[in-house]
């Protein structure tokens, strides 16, 4: 009974009459609000009432906001916007015509930006013919912490875990890729041409497959005819461009294609049907070697502890850098005052650093300094002054006295090192 359509002719009349004093109230009651600005006319044509769109802004002027973000929030609006939060298309390719295999580097357990570009390139190849779409198969080795795999354009996911893939294990990885080749015979193999990642593995794979790969590929052009993919590759130490037909194995440079934004792909798990054969390892990884962080060039250091004018206890700072095994950096003031050597200066007139973690101790964050740390991933600021620019830039800012905080940090890290040592001794 409740759903019976009851008409109130009077209200309908008021709703049609824009000049009626109750017009707005009745519109809202009928639940037509802003939505009623558009309706299907009797001839089947969409009609719009331009007077009904928009809202009265704070200064009494009528505003039209076509993004829909600012309209009166009726119930239906909220529902619509909730859905709009993720408007990306979901794509699940049931029976792909072919596979494009990608082996991302997964450096530090996450898809690197080059990995995403290569996946974007793979999508170009897979989606070229909408009638016969291919699927992108990603082969991941070892553990990873990437959550957004489906957002990078992966249809099928082969995740190979296990001790045999830990560290530098090109032989085991190559054996796994050959198993993939036997099981699925992908139409293309795409790898990032990145030092010690895909560049190494991809060349091994190409040599094993007996395919001549294209290396240093940075552009892909759909040719005129059927099998006409052409690629543009860097050759001769980056001084030549080679245009050639696209081979089966492709090693691509960063920014070779746009990464995938618009769609979510299924990233369905697949497994190898056969267990991997034991490989005879002739290369043994003996682990990372402790390098003297002071010897690492500032520009390529991964972890920098940087001192500014706010550092008063220099012995404490040097000790902290030693315990944390961080490369030392400095602001210009610290260098000019003679506390740090000139080659440690970070910033516009110093070095542009690319650290993953940059800890700025007592640095105010002058623009000349901030320029130098543009490409750092995580910035930690230790400073007195909560209003300074470095604190605004930082991902984590701790306000307080630098020497005390550094001393506490040193104590923590020493304790952690000791625990590690004990557990190693126990093992």
């Amino acid at each position, binding site marked *: 009974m409740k759903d019976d359509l009851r008409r109130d002719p009077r209200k309908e009349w008021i709703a049609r009459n824009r000049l009626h004093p109750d017009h707005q109230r009745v519109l809202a009651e009928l639940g037509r609000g802003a939505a009623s600005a558009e309706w299907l006319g009797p001839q089947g044509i969409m009609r719009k009432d331009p007077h009904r769109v928009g809202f009265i802004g704070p200064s009494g002027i009528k505003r039209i906001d076509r993004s829909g973000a600012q309209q009166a929030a009726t119930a239906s609006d909220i529902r619509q916007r909730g859905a709009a939060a993720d408007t990306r298309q979901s794509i699940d390719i049931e029976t792909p015509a072919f596979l494009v295999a990608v082996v991302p580097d997964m450096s530090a357990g996450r898809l690197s930006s080059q990995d995403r570009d290569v996946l974007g390139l793979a999508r170009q190849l897979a989606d070229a013919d909408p009638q016969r779409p291919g699927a992108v198969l990603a082969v991941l080795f070892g553990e990873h912490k990437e959550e957004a795999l489906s957002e990078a354009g992966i249809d099928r996911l082969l995740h190979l875990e296990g001790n045999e893939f830990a560290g530098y294990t090109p032989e085991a990885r190559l054996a796994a890729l050959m198993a993939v080749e036997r099981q699925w015979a992908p139409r293309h193999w795409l790898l990032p041409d990145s030092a010690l990642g895909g560049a190494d593995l991809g060349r091994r794979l190409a040599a094993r497959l007996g395919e001549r790969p294209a290396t240093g590929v940075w552009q892909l052009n759909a040719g005129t005819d059927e099998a006409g993919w052409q690629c543009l590759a860097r050759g001769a130490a980056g001084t030549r461009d080679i245009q050639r037909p696209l081979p089966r194995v492709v090693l691509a440079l960063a920014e070779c294609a746009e990464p995938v934004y618009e769609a979510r792909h299924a990233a369905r798990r697949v497994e190898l049907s056969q267990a991997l054969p034991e490989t005879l390892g002739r290369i043994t990884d003996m682990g990372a070697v402790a*390098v003297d962080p002071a010897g690492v060039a500032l520009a390529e250091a991964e972890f920098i502890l940087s001192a500014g004018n706010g550092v008063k206890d220099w012995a404490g700072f040097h000790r902290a850098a030693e315990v944390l095994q961080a490369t030392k950096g400095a602001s210009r003031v610290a260098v000019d005052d003679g506390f740090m050597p000139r080659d440690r200066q970070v910033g516009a007139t110093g070095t542009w650093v690319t650290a993953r973690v940059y800890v700025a101790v007592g640095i105010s964050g002058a623009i000349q300094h901030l320029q130098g740390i543009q490409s750092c991933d995580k910035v930690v600021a230790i400073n007195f002054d909560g209003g300074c620019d470095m604190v605004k830039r930082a991902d984590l800012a701790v306000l307080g006295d630098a020497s005390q905080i550094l001393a506490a940090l040193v104590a923590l890290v020493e304790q952690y090192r000791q625990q590690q040592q004990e557990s190693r001794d126990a093992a």
Partner: protein
Amino acid sequence: MPHDANSQTSARAQPHGGGQPSVAVLVSMGRHPLTERARRADQDARAVEMALSLGDVQPRLLHAGHFDQDSEAALRGYLGMGFDALELIEQEPGADVIAALCDRLRDAAPQLVLTGARAETDEGSGLLPYLLAEALGWPIVASLASIERIEQGEATLLQALPRGQRRRLRVRLPAVFTVDGSAPAPRQSAFGPARRGVVERIACTSLQDAAFAEWRIQPARKRPKRLKIVKAASARDRFKAAAAKAEGGGGQVLADVTPEQGAEAIFKLLQEEGVLR
């Protein structure tokens, strides 16, 4: 040359004792990036330097390619690093040298083959060492920083990782190693030895690289810079994205905490990022 090629073949299977391993360095013709003049290739010269640092036995230099004025100038650059002779396997221009090199290495059977990661001319794909290793059935390791020691048929070496990091590897010999810019810089090439050195030419049939001849090769174009593309549904969002400051806040600020609490937070971040070793 102190090498006797035939006596080395049997040494391959045996564990190598205290003796010096035999080393072959594959060198190629380089080209200066700006002037395009023929010169020794930088990475190959680093490989030669690494081979020289291994011990007293002189490494053997090997080049496969066409012999003309340009390549002679380049090859003499290697001789000037302190060599009496260099073997040149003669090939026609535009030949695929893999098979010729592979045959030669099989005969010579060195314990170690060192070479630069990629050539400075032609395709420069860096594939050659991998193809050689595959054909010979030897392991290959890329991007060497140094060779620490060689004993009992195993080499212990340091591999250069990005960001100045190093990794220690142990590899069974014989093996192919490649060297790139992170290896120690090569010594200068001295003029006298470069003049005096002999290029020993070995005739060899050559296979033409047919595919390469079909490709279009042009000077490298400048790559277009990637634009910051704003994916927004409406003009308003696009405007907001364009007008936004590049580095918005959103960082966590810890005020009024004890130094210990602050240090704890920093420690946690460092651990999450995995920079504490």
